[in-house]
């Protein structure tokens, strides 16, 4: 039973990943990534980490992907040019990806980690549930927890600074932000 769930979720995750890089339209890429994220959440559940799986679904597939969908709808999916700056890039890139995969597999599986061939030890009841993760976050990893909250605040401020409409882009007449919508309607009216 566990093997069936693993293989179904693994095929979903791999199919989603290939869908992300194969779709021409960025909107379909985002949808493929959502499939990938749900499959990964199932894999996390198999690894008895319920909190990470729930966070994956709620934070990633819920919040972050909505952000992506809005930006794709705003920017629009432009077609990519077929021009290649490096000749043979489309053949060299898969070669490099396959080389990286074999290298990573050899590095991990060739290591002397005996426990890789086991299921892992028997875990106590409540392993990986929100209470256990919360206790770890607030007792042992308090400093990284607070640092990540500061990082989130900085990222929010940075995104507002980056994406905010600047005054010089709106028109020649300097104006306050509150009247910018009116100016957009009648940009030529002087001092209306």
């Amino acid at each position, binding site marked *: 039973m566990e093997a069936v769930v693993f293989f179904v979720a693994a095929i979903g995750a791999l199919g989603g990943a290939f869908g992300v890089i194969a779709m021409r339209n960025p909107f379909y890429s985002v949808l493929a990534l959502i499939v990938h994220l749900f499959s*990964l959440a199932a894999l996390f559940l198999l690894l008895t980490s319920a909190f990470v799986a729930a966070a994956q679904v709620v934070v990633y597939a819920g919040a972050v992907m909505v952000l992506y969908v809005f930006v794709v709808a705003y920017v629009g999916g432009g077609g990519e040019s077929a021009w290649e700056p490096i000749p043979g890039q489309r053949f060299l890139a898969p070669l490099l990806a396959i080389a990286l995969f074999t290298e990573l*597999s050899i590095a991990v599986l060739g290591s002397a980690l005996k426990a890789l061939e086991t299921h892992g*030890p028997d875990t106590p009841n409540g392993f990986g549930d929100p209470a256990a993760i919360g206790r770890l976050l607030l007792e042992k990893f308090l400093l990284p927890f607070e640092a990540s909250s500061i990082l989130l605040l900085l990222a929010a401020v940075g995104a507002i600074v980056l994406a905010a409409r600047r005054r010089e882009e709106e028109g020649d007449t300097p104006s306050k932000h509150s009247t910018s919508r009116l100016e957009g309607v009648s940009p030529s009216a002087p001092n209306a």
Partner: protein
Amino acid sequence: MNISWYIVLSSLLFATGVLGILIRRSPMVILLCLELMLNAGNLALVAFSRMVGNGQGQVFAVIVMVIAACEVVVGLGLIVAIFRRKLPLNVDDLRELRG
């Protein structure tokens, strides 16, 4: 299932993300491929956490998710700023920092 299956799947997903970054040119899809790579790292972290039988790797995975959310927010802000300036959304054309 043995832990090694999860690790092999994780490295396969990571290589897929690298492949996407190498062959795609839209900055948005490149951000999506970065997400693929971060998620592959997350899967490896959670699998190793299960292997050791210790919940600390899962805390790492949660913090990686926070980092990924920050990266997405800043990256999408950059894409919106590039779009507002009417620059082409193509990483081959966007090779100069000075516009």
